[in-house]
């Protein structure tokens, strides 16, 4: 199972995350979970929504960037956040992602709100394979 941590010394005004996964799929799922925790307390989101997301990009890091950007976009367009995801990343030209998201609507009466991401940045951005595991570092503009 993947894990993530907040990097306190990077990005004074925003949120820097380091994410690790047992596999590429796990990296993407863990990143989605991390982003959700940045935005809300996941325990306060009733699981009422399921969505599918399909993306493609020329490189794995751009796919990762687009994945998190999509979650930020859905937060604003539909006012939904996703506490769980199942992701399948396929290597190729282009790289492809197929994901199934589970989450709920942001309810000001029930949802414990945290920060409101504006965008994914390229600041100190990396996605890399380390042995059997994958690692990413990303700064989210708050």
């Amino acid at each position: 199972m993947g894990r993530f941590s907040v990097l306190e010394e990077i990005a004074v005004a925003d949120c820097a995350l380091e994410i690790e996964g047992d596999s590429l799929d796990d990296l993407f799922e863990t990143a989605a979970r991390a982003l959700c925790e940045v935005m809300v307390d996941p325990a306060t989101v009733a699981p009422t929504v399921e969505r599918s997301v399909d993306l493609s990009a020329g490189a794995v890091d751009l796919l990762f960037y687009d994945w998190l950007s999509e979650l930020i976009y859905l937060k604003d367009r539909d006012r939904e956040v996703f506490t769980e995801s199942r992701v399948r990343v396929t290597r190729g030209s282009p790289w492809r992602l197929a994901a199934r998201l589970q989450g709920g609507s942001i309810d000001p009466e029930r949802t414990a709100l945290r920060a409101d991401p504006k965008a994914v940045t390229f600041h100190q951005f990396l996605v890399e394979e380390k042995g059997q595991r994958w690692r990413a570092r990303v700064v989210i503009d708050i």
Partner: protein
Amino acid sequence: MKVTPAGDCIWEIPPAEKPGMRVPARIYASETLLSQMDQGVFEQVTNVACLPGIVRAALCMPDGHWGYGFPIGGVAAFRVDTGVISPGGIGFDINCGMRVLRTSLTEAEVRPRLRELIDALFSAVPSGVGARGSLRLSATAFRRIMVEGAGWCVSEGYGWREDLDRMEGRGCLPGADPGHVSERAVSRGLQQLGTLGSGNHYLEIQVVPPEGIHEAGLARALGIEGAGQVLVMLHCGSRGFGHQIATDYLRRFAEVMPRYGISVVDRELACAPFRSPEGQAYFGAMTAAANSAFANRQLITHRIREVFSRVLGRDPHALGLSVIYDVCHNTAKVERHRVDGESMELVVHRKGATRAFGPGAPDVPEAYRDIGQPVIIGGSMETGSALLVGTAHAMTETWGSTAHGAGRTMSRAQAKKRVWGERLLQDMEARGILVRAASKSGVAEEAGFAYKDLDAVVDVLHRVDISRKVVSLRPIANVKG
């Protein structure tokens, strides 16, 4: 990196310090503020100095800290014919800016109703993650807003005609092109008009403290008569609409740069020649977002008037709730400046920096043309803000630019470790500052100790003569996302 003194509160990094620098980097700061700046400021301002078509110097204001591409507090001007436009020089929150309204109320009149006012404002101006605006806009109406800016709000009944006279660019910058805005950006922002946002965005009720008026004549010209007077300040931007436009074009420019033989050391400095189809497309979309931000602050102004009127039982005109001014601090604008004695059109990027045109400048509203453009500098929710005016010297020193705020000194994570949001709210209330926040952890992140000393920043602006101090303001109530 060698940083050498170049004047009182002025420092320079010469081009020899980094390969590719076309001009020096210039930082405006006291010795103390300079010593507090993170290394990223120096890296980023010298990276900006490498961009094609940059004129004279890459600048950083005294509230500078590191951002994405440009430092926050970064200002750079580029020739329109050979220079570039860079989304990183504007920021994700296009036309994040400030607005301040005066009232004819005193603290003594407002204090007994302050809780009611702040609760009503919290309800009338949605904030935080997932906030939804009160207007149900069609995509067609939204496209009109992109072109008309605050003027759309006034024509629809959400404001007074004279509000437009008290806004940078009269609340509508020329050159907006909805045709270069993605459907994704429209769908992201369509439901957010009239919302505050989160993070360091806020709506604040402030008073002029007893020692707060530094120049009485200038203060009166801004509509501020004396200590105890109540003002309302607003800090917010273009919301998801602007954020998506910035994301769209940052991504697109990364692919476009090689075509123009441009390479940058930092992906966040992705850019395109200003006159290229891509550069013009971004400028058109960016301006559309800027106009939506003016409309956002205008709609929120309307809600502020409704709330004050309802709670205090008087018409907003009778309450004297008029706009003093509205400034952008994340934009790129085509402006005419003098360069080596010649008048030249430049694309002036201000990222976390405010325009500060001096007396006599034609773009300054007639009401302020004798004194200079009002400048609004926001501090932390605990310490207060300041009003200044632009100067003639700013026009030649910094392309008519000045700082925008206090700048952060520590990360959000570090701030949350030092104080618990609930405790901070209690402490602030004990000190007479009421806060309604959509997120308690967000409050902790915005604690006063996380920001630089605003007085120190303002003092530099005054010493370098790029803005003149007029009024200091103290918060008494705050709405945060």
